């Protein structure tokens, strides 16, 4: 196909970064929970999906998109707290596969419940009016809403970074991830820390689901595809590393975008090819700590 120009390549690169922002937002919650709790949360996609449905429901009863941006993470976060307290907590201290299997089953239960409550068919989710349409970004037109998603991702990342690095609670979380036993000896209630981390992780998943809804509509199975892609992102970035998830998310977005330009048939495979290459060269991923899984 002819028509390759500098503008197109630049636009394609930008589209890749925008796509990467969505991966990042989804993967940081996954990575946060794994890094701190060593729980591989297979229900992350389901929390994401429920986030979109909660948004849909709130709008149907008179809310708007902007209030949802606040309300959805709170609702999903509270739901996450309940899941941690009731289901995950009894499994701490057992093998890594216990919470993995539990969350895997939980994701099926959540998807099925949503199917019962809202039906198997999807729903449209309109882009908020002020964010509709495309704007000229210098190299071509790009949807305004996707720019907003990039901005929202940056805000979440900044808030998370400030929380973890600049608050005393963040310090406890980081210490708890390094060595929970010493933290416990120092008189800190580690289980409370883990509870809150799980809540934050799921809240971000719900937030990501809400942001994804205007891009693709809402359907019970929407968490499935992105979960597979997000696992690639966390593995490439290094399991448990938030910085790694950010870098890997953007990289995966750009790799998908660039293969789409030159060989669209290969776009889906390219993600996994990237993962294979990274794992051969650096088995723990970009910023992963070796031995976290063992």
């Amino acid at each position, binding site marked *: *196909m002819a*028509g390759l*120009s500098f*503008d*197109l390549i630049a*636009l*394609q690169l930008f*589209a*890749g970064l*925008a*796509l990467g922002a*969505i991966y990042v937002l989804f993967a940081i919650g996954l990575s946060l929970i794994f890094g701190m709790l060593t729980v591989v949360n297979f229900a992350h996609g389901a929390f994401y999906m429920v986030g979109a449905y909660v948004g849909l429901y709130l709008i149907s009863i008179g809310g708007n998109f902007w209030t949802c941006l606040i309300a959805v993470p709170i609702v999903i976060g509270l739901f996450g707290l309940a899941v941690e307290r009731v289901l995950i907590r009894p499994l701490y201290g057992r093998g890594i596969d216990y919470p993995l299997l539990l969350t895997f089953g939980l994701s099926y239960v959540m998807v099925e419940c949503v199917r019962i409550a809202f039906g*198997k*068919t*999807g*729903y*449209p989710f*309109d*882009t908020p009016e002020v964010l*509709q*349409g*495309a704007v000229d970004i210098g190299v*071509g*037109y*790009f*949807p305004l*809403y*996707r720019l907003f998603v990039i901005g929202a991702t940056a805000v979440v990342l900044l808030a998370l970074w400030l929380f973890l690095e600049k608050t005393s609670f963040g310090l406890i979380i980081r210490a708890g991830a390094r060595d929970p036993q010493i933290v416990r000896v120092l008189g800190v209630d580690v289980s409370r820390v883990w509870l809150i981390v799980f809540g934050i992780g799921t809240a971000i998943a719900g937030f990501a689901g809400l942001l994804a809804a205007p*891009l*693709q*509509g809402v*359907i019970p*199975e*929407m968490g499935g*595809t*992105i979960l597979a892609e997000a696992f690639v992102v966390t593995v490439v970035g290094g399991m448990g590393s938030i910085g790694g998830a950010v870098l890997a998310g953007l990289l995966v977005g750009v790799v*998908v*975008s660039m293969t*789409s*330009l030159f060989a*669209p*048939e290969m*776009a*889906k495979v390219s993600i996994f090819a990237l993962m294979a290459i990274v794992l051969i060269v650096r088995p723990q991923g970009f910023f992963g700590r070796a031995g976290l899984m063992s």
Partner: protein
Amino acid sequence: MTKKVAKAGSISRRRLLTTASAGAVLAVSPFRINLLQAEEAPIKIGFPVPLTGPYGAEAQDQVRAGQLAVAQFNDAGGLNGRKAELVVRDDKLNPGEAATRTLELVEKEKVNFVVGSLSAAVQLAINNVTKERGVIFNSISQSDAINEAADFSKFTFHEALNPHMTSGAVGRYAFAKFGKKVAFLTADYAYGHEMVRGFLEVGKEFNIENLGDIRHPLGTTDFSTLLPRLQALKPDILCISNFGRDQQIALKQATDFGIKKSIQIIAPLLSHASRVAAGPQAFEGVVGGCSFYWGIEDKFASTKAFNDAFRKMYDGKLPTDYGALGYGGVRTVLEAVKGAGSVETDKVVAALEALKYDYYKGPQYYRKCDHQSVQSVLVIKSKSKDMKNESDVFEVLSTEEPNEKYLRTCEALGHKS
């Protein structure tokens, strides 16, 4: 007195236990099959469709309308009092799953006929099973391959349109009107490939210029990396050949990218259920084809009757395109059963071949050589304003009347004439 009652109670309990255990033994024994095979056993129609997955919305409509055809048959007295029954299975849009479910329908459920499928690829897997077992299969989903000699068998019928007819009708309308420079965005499997082949075939008559064909895997949720390239090709027409949720998302994101400002989007098929699921904004102004739209009820009494029956059964809801196919697929088989006076395969095949019918969309018949239903194709445009009800989503732009000249010839398909 109390003693007596207690005694009677204990006997009935014992009797209950005996009956129940006898029932249980019967249920697992091979006798059961013989009992069910008796004259009064229902006529079973296996119905494998992708209830979950990207085509779920359409598949549920197929089931609803299929149930209506069965209910009408039963209300009219069935086959001399013998009732029909729809045995629905979820094929999950997966050829392997569909083959297993179909085999199960044939072997375990002992279905008399199979109607269903919603995928150009999956229906071939179903057809492989039914062909081998000598069971009639009426496919209600688009495919060109199913007409071809390699896949065809005398048990294979095709109630749906095929891609050649559909893209032909849409292409003849669009290429004359919107321009000659065409770019394609295509789902990378049989459906998409067959549609593009059809568009390029009809495009020869109009001297269209093919600027490029970008293919995406089935079940894609983000098209943002494909759209800038398509936009840069500067086509007059962007032809998006995908279906179900893929179509919903592709059209939504193409709208977000502002593609509709300078480019006319066409699709071989515009699905009613997808249009409802995605909302008016995403589909606004898109032109495509379909096999059925409830709005043709002014034109055909059969459409009016079908719409009314459907409304009555489903609280005022109107049938969709794929719903109508579910109805047509099941009804033709049951009418043939009535005509043949039997469920014997050979007699029903002969009755289907002889059928000249008008059940929901005007006159139709199965062509002798490939059992393709010769029928009209509607060219429609999505509405975004002046909608009278929630089903008022399309405007019919033109109708291509049923004519064998719009089908590939029997010789071209490899059939001996």
